[in-house]
C-alpha cells in the first residue's frame, strides 16, 4: 500500500508545492471579480425587495407551513443527490473503464436526459406512471387496477433523479478518463480484489468529481420548478413561483432570501468536506494504453442496469414524444420544423457555453492554484445563481437593467449574461475537477525555463484541462438549450427558442406541436455528446 499512499498527499502537512508565484496574476483576478459582481445582481435585488416588504410578509414566512416546505425541500435535495450518485458512479465506471457491451451508445444516451426540460420529463412521467397511466394499462391484464400515487415525493424524486444524474456522470467520466491506470494495476498486483480496489483507490480519486457533481444536483433539485409543480410537491421554489403568481413579489423575494441562505449553508458544508487532498500525479505519469476491465458474467447485470436507467430517463420520454408526433400525423396535423427556433437555440446556447467556460476558467484557477479565503468565497458565490429559481434571476435582471442599463434591456448580451449567472457553476464544476488533476509543477517547470505566466498556463495547463472544459461547455450548452424563465422574460422581443415553443405548446395542450421541437432538442444535443464521447475514447487510447 505504500506504493499508493503518496499519491494522495495531504496539504495539511504544510506542503504548498513550493510555488514560484504566490499571488494570482491580473488576467485571473479581473475576470473573477467581474463574475462575482454579476452574482451580486440577484442578491441585491432580493435584499431590496425584502427590505421593502412589510411585517405582514414576515408573518407569512415564519409559520409552520414554511417549515414543512423547508423540510420537503431538504428531503428532495438529499434523496435526489444520493439517487444521482447511485446511478451516475456505476454508469461512469462501466462506460469508461470496462468492456460493457454497447458502451459508446450508453456513453452518449446516459448523458442526454440533461437536455429534457423537467416540466416535460414530469409530464411524461405522469402519463406513464400515474395510477391510471400507460404502465397500468399494460399491467391491467394482470389484474392491477391502479398504481400507487405518483404525485408528491415519489414522482418529484424519480423525475429529478432521472434528469439530473448526468451532472454527476459528466465530471465522473472526465475524472475516470484521466485516472492513472498504474495505481489501479499496482493495487491489483498487490493482491487487492477488484471491488476493494474500486472502493479504496478509484472512489477516493473520484471524490472531487462526485462531490462537485452532486452539489449541482442538490442545487438543481432546490431550484427546479417544472417537476415539482407538475407533480405537486411543495418546495421552496414552488412556493416562490406561487407567490409571484399571487402578485406577492415581496413574499417571493423573502422566500428567495431563505433559499439563498439554505444554498450558502450547503456550499459551506461542501467546502468543509472537500478537504485538501491532492489528486494529481506526483510522477510524470506514464499513461499507458488502458485495458478495459473485463466484466465477465457481470456484464449482463451491468447491461440490465444501464438499460433500465436509460429506458426511464430517455426511452420513455422519447417514445411518448414520438407517439405524439405519429398521432398528430394520423390526425393530418401539419408538422413544420421550427428552423428559426432551432437556429436561435443553437446560437444562444453555443454563446452561453463559450462565455461560461471563459468565465469559469479564471475562477477555477484562482480557487485551486491560489486557495485562500477570498478565492474560496469567490468560487462559492458563483454557485448562488444555480440555486435560485430562474424567474428570480430574470426579474432581478429586469429590475436593474431597465433602470441602470436601459439600452441593454431585452438584448442578446443581457440574455447571455443571465445564462452565465444561472449556469456558471455547471462549467465551473467540471473545470475544477480537471484542474485538481493537473500537477502545478508542470507549469512551474515551464516558468523556471523562462516562459511567461500566461504562456506557461496556455501551453501547459490549458491543454490538460481540455476534457474538463469540453464537459463544462457541453453541460452549459444543454442547460441553456432547455432554459425557460429567463429566456421568456429577457430575450429580445420576438426571439423564440425550441424551449419556449415546447412550453407554449404543452401549456395550451398542443401536444404534437410540443413534440416536434422537443425531439429536435434531443436530436441536436446528440451531436455534441457523440463528439464529446468519441473525443474521450480517443484520449483514453492515446
Amino acid at each position, binding site marked *: 500500500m505504500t506504493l499508493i499512499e503518496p499519491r494522495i498527499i495531504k496539504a495539511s502537512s504544510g506542503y504548498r508545492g513550493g510555488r514560484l508565484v504566490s499571488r494570482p496574476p491580473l488576467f485571473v483576478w479581473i475576470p473573477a471579480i467581474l463574475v462575482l459582481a454579476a452574482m451580486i445582481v440577484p442578491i441585491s435585488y432580493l435584499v431590496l425587495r425584502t427590505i421593502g416588504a412589510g411585517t405582514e410578509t414576515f408573518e407569512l414566512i415564519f409559520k409552520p407551513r414554511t417549515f414543512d416546505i423547508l423540510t420537503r425541500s431538504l428531503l428532495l435535495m438529499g434523496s435526489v443527490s444520493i439517487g444521482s450518485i447511485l446511478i451516475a458512479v456505476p454508469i461512469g465506471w462501466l462506460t469508461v473503464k470496462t468492456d460493457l457491451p454497447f458502451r459508446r451508445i450508453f456513453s452518449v444516451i446516459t448523458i442526454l436526459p440533461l437536455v429534457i426540460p423537467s416540466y416535460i420529463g414530469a409530464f411524461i412521467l405522469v402519463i406513464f406512471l400515474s395510477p*391510471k397511466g400507460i404502465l397500468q394499462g399494460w399491467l391491467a391484464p394482470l389484474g392491477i387496477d391502479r398504481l400507487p400515487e405518483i404525485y408528491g415525493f415519489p414522482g418529484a424524486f424519480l423525475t429529478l433523479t432521472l434528469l439530473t444524474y448526468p451532472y454527476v456522470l459528466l465530471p465522473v467520466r472526465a475524472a475516470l478518463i484521466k485516472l492513472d491506470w498504474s495505481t489501479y494495476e499496482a493495487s491489483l498486483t498487490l493482491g487487492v480484489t477488484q471491488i476493494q480496489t474500486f472502493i479504496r483507490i478509484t472512489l477516493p480519486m473520484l471524490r472531487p468529481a462526485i462531490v462537485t457533481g452532486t452539489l449541482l444536483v442538490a442545487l438543481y433539485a432546490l431550484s427546479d420548478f417544472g417537476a415539482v409543480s407538475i407533480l405537486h410537491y411543495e418546495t421552496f421554489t414552488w412556493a416562490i413561483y406561487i407567490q409571484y403568481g399571487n402578485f406577492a413579489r415581496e413574499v417571493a423575494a423573502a422566500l428567495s432570501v431563505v433559499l439563498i441562505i439554505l444554498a450558502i449553508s450547503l456550499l459551506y458544508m461542501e467546502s468543509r468536506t472537500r478537504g485538501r487532498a491532492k489528486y494529481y500525479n506526483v510522477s510524470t505519469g506514464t499513461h499507458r494504453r488502458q485495458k478495459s476491465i473485463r466484466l465477465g458474467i457481470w456484464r449482463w447485470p451491468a447491461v440490465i442496469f444501464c438499460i433500465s436507467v436509460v429506458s426511464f430517463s430517455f426511452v420513455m420520454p422519447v417514445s411518448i414524444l414520438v407517439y405524439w408526433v405519429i398521432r398528430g400525423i394520423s390526425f393530418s396535423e401539419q408538422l413544420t420544423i421550427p428552423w428559426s427556433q432551432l437556429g436561435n437555440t443553437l446560437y444562444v446556447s453555443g454563446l452561453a457555453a463559450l462565455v461560461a467556460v471563459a468565465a469559469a476558467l479564471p475562477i477555477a484557477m484562482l480557487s485551486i492554484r491560489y486557495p485562500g479565503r477570498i478565492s474560496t468565497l469567490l468560487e462559492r458565490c458563483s454557485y448562488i445563481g444555480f440555486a435560485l429559481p430562474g424567474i428570480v434571476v430574470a426579474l432581478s435582471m429586469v429590475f436593474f437593467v431597465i433602470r441602470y442599463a436601459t439600452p441593454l434591456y431585452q438584448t442578446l448580451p443581457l440574455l447571455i449574461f443571465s445564462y452565465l449567472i444561472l449556469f456558471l457553476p455547471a462549467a465551473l464544476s467540471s473545470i475544477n475537477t480537471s484542474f485538481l488533476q493537473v500537477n502545478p509543477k508542470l507549469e512551474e517547470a515551464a516558468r523556471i525555463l523562462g516562459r511567461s505566466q500566461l504562456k506557461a498556463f496556455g501551453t501547459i495547463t490549458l491543454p490538460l484541462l481540455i476534457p474538463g472544459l469540453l464537459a463544462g461547455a457541453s453541460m452549459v450548452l444543454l442547460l441553456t438549450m432547455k432554459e425557460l424563465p429567463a429566456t421568456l422574460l429577457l430575450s429580445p422581443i420576438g426571439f423564440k427558442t425550441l424551449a419556449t415553443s415546447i412550453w407554449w405548446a404543452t401549456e395550451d395542450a398542443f401536444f404534437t406541436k410540443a413534440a416536434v421541437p422537443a425531439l429536435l432538442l434531443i436530436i441536436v444535443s446528440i451531436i455534441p455528446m457523440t463528439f464529446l464521447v468519441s473525443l474521450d475514447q480517443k484520449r483514453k487510447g492515446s
Partner: protein
Amino acid sequence: MYHLSNFPKLKPIFMAIWLLLIPIASTACSNSDTEMTADSTSIISGGIPVVNKADPGNLIIYSGRGELLVGPIIQQFQDATSINISVKYGQTQEIAATLLEEGNKSPADIFFASDPGGLGSVEDMLAPLSNEILNLVPEWARSSKGKWVGLSGRARTVVYNPKNLTEADLPNDMYGFTDPKWKNRIGWAPTNSSFQTMVTAMRATWGEEKTRNWLEGIQANKPTTYPKNVPQLAAVAASEIDVGFVNHYYLYRFLAEEGETFSARNYHPSAGGPGSMVMVAGAGILSTSENPDNGQKFLQFMLSKPAQQYFARQTFEYPLLEDIKTNPILTPLNEIKKPHVPVSKLADIRGTVNLLRETGVLP
C-alpha cells in the same frame, strides 16, 4: 500523455474567448442586435416586406396568452395595418410581475392577459380606455375603472368522464362537491388564476363564510392538486379523478389532439352560481405607451367581427360581440346560468389569496 504539439498556440484561442466575453458582458453587441431585430420582424411579418409611405409605427405587445392561440390573429392585424408589431409571449402572472419591475420604463404598449386577475394587478399602470372601445363589450366583460377590455369569454366548468358519470350524477351547484361522497374523486388547481377568479366570484355571491366552508369541504374530500388545467383533463380522461374544476376550452384542444374518443366532457352546473361563471381574457394599453393610437387600433381590431369569429372558431372561446355566433360545439352562452358578479368585485384577488392562505390551500 498530451503532447503539447497536439495543441499548438492555444493562447490565442484563450485570448479570443476573453475578447468575445468582454463586449458581451459590457455593451450591447450591436451586430447581433440588428441581426435579431431583422430576424424577429421576418418571423412576425411572415416575410412580407413592410413598405409604407405614411409610417404606421410600432406596437409592442406583452401577451400572457400563447402564440399558438393568439399569434394568427395578431398576424392578421399586422397584415391589415402594416404596423410593425413585436410580441413578447409569457405567462400572464409572470408578465404582470415583469411589468411591475419594469415600472414606467416598460417598453410595452399592450398587455394582453389571459384573465382579469393579471390585468387587475397592473391596473395602475394602464391608461383609461375610450368609451367607444369599452362600450363594444357588455359591462361584465370590462374593467370597472375603464382600464381594460375583455376580448374573448371563457366559462368555468366541471370536467367529468362520461364513461364513469352522467350529468345527472353531478350536483347542480359547486357547493354539492363538499358532500363526502366526492371523497378522493375531485381534482383542482388552486394556484391557477382562473380558479382563483372563481373563488372571488364565490366570495361575491356566497359571502366569505360560505366560501370558506366550501374550501374546507373540498379539502376534507382530499382532492388531487394539479398545477393547471391541462393535466386535470388528462387525469379525468384516464379515470384517475372523476371531476376537475377547469376552464371550458381545454377540452376542445384535447378533442382536436386525440379525437372524439377522448373521454372527458364539460358540465356547467345546472343551478348556476359561481361554478358557471363566465370571465374574459382581455387587454389594456400601458399609460407609458409611446404608441397609444396603435394600441387603440389593436383593441378595436380584436373586437371586430373577423377577430371575434377567430376566437369563436379557432380557440373555442365565447365571442363578446352579440352578433357573432358561438362555436356550435360549445354550450351557448345563454344556456349557462352565469352568476351576476360585478367586475369591480372580481378585481379583489388579494382577498381571495388571503382566504386561500388562511384555509391552508395556498402557502
